[in-house]
């Protein structure tokens, strides 16, 4: 079975997002171990980008901190490559298409495969766009996790779920990441039932705007897993030093897991 799909077996998966290199690649490494020890099922690592147009302010700022610290995609992949023997939880890279295009699509697929990365999410690369990336990810056996949104048509849903592997990323509302003003999409149940009918066996991960345990509890019955990014980054940022930051991350994951 696909390494990512396996993480959804017999449980609600918790998927957490952190921004690679925020505020340093050393801290990213420590956070990965911490999240792994707390029992997170999948970890998404954001590739920092100057113009992250699907992201709200929290992840925008996280990207900026990472870039200021000199993080590049090359350095990020090198770091993940170096620590791969200590990481058991599957890692997923999430980034904008320009970063990958600039790196070289084939080189990217090859290098992240060597670094032990299991999946890739590219929020600004729709299923029907021309991109060699799709081909190379398949060639190197890396899952391409695609996104659907509450307003995705049936026709597109079919195409997207056919092309997605690992899981299907269901965006919880119309908006950017970390937008907790939006609330939960009012017809969440209908939306996810509709997606499930088309997606079949593919697990459904729900993300965008899930800001803590309360919201997690309300929605967990509808999906197979939840994705938390901005809310986690916020609590990490609230720490005054590295230990506090790691500790905050651990406490936060515990509080979410208790609701799953």
């Amino acid at each position, binding site marked *: 079975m696909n390494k990512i799909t396996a993480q959804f077996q017999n449980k609600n998966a918790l998927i957490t997002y952190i921004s690679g290199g925020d505020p340093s690649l050393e801290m990213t490494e420590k956070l990965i171990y911490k999240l792994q020890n707390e029992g997170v099922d999948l970890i998404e690592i954001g590739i920092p*980008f*100057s*113009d*992250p*147009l*699907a992201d*709200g*302010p929290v992840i*925008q700022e996280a990207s900026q901190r990472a*870039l200021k610290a000199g993080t*590049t*995609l*090359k350095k990020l992949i090198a770091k993940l490559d170096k620590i791969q023997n200590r990481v058991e939880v599957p890692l997923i890279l999430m980034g*904008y*298409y*320009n*970063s990958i*295009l*600039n*790196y070289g699509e084939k080189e990217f697929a090859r290098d992240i495969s060597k670094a032990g990365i299991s999946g890739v999410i590219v*929020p*600004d*690369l*729709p299923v*029907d*766009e*021309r991109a060699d990336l799709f081909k190379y990810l398949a060639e190197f056996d890396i899952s391409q996790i*695609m*996104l*659907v*949104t509450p*307003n*995705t*048509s049936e026709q*597109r849903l079919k195409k*997207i779920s056919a092309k997605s592997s690992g899981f299907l990323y269901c*965006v919880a509302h*119309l*908006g*950017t990441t970390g*937008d907790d003003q*939006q609330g939960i999409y009012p017809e969440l149940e209908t939306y996810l039932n509709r997606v499930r009918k088309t997606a079949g066996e593919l697990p459904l991960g729900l993300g965008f705007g899930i800001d803590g345990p309360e919201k997690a509890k309300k929605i967990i019955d509808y999906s197979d897993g939840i994705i938390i990014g901005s809310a986690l980054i916020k609590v990490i940022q609230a720490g005054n030093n590295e230990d506090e930051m790691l500790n905050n991350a651990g406490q936060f994951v515990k509080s979410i897991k208790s609701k799953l």
Partner: protein
Amino acid sequence: MSRGYFEEFGGRFVPETLMPALDELEEVYLALKNDPEFINELKALLADYSGRPTSLYYAEQLTKYYGGAKIYLKREDLNHTGAHKINNTLGQILLARKMGKKRIIAETGAGQHGVATATVAARFNLDCKVYMGAEDIERQALNVYKMEMLGAEVIPVTSGSRTLKDATNEAIRDWVTNVENTHYIIGSVVGPHPYPEMVRDFQRIIGDETKEQIKEKEGRLPDYILACVGGGSNAMGIFYPFVEDKEVNLIGVEASGKGIDSGQHAATLTAGRVGVLHGSKSYLLQDDDGQIIPAYSISAGLDYPGVGPEHSYLKSIERVKYHSASDLEAIAAFKLLSEKEGIIPALESSHALSYLEKLAPELDQDQLIVVNLSGRGDKDINNFKKIREAEKDE
């Protein structure tokens, strides 16, 4: 539906949330494009509301000054709101109305597109928000007052480089969030399909009129057409009807700011590499890691690190030649036109005008040059202090 590519450039690189809106826009646009009722309504608005056709003016004094080719100016500065931008916003507001959208958003750099959008939103009684970089708000205060007077809300954007690129990011984020009731009026031939094609079609009236007018005045097509290029809408507008007329040389002029070597410029086609920004694949200013480099130009309307995908295509097939002009060259052209012809041009258009110095004297007196005077310079007057400082630094 077509995929919106000009060979390798263009496409639709956007979050999935926007796909239904782009499909709907494309469908409505393609349906209305050839609908006589839509065509007539737009034509009437362009004529009676904006004052089209704009004139093709023989700049006799400027021609004498350079002593070479005969110079004509396509007077887009005479449009309502002072620039070519309204050609596009009038078209798009009619589409928004057709789609039943209640809310309009736009990005703006120099504020010309913001004013043109606020204007049509007022005319059609739609709610309007304009995203504008905090830096540009300072540089273009006059246009901010105008937009507010017209009832639009101007939202300062403080993320990133605080200019047009960041205002565009924020507008896209707003659209992702409010896509069900909102139409995003993009101001240039950039963005995801169908925008580059649609905005070009709304702007081609500049070139269509020019063709007719020059034939009437000179009995033939011009030898050269010059236009400034930021995102590239005024240039696409005047170039497009001439693309098949191979005898007409088309020249786009980008902003080289303080010089290409200084790193402070906006010369995307001259110094950029192919990448993806704001929904389409085109030339971009980016670093080794693929991060977008903030553009720089004294003119806020050219201060953009991307360029329309069709320009990238026209460059790749060498149909259009792209050059660049610096801040100081643009300022000199700005003054020269004011003094010689009594026309104060926008700093954006001054970049195109500045190329005359290299071109006009080299040509024979029976050769013809048309410069697209895309906007008027009133908005830049209060920048004059900064302009003088820039000259002192020389």
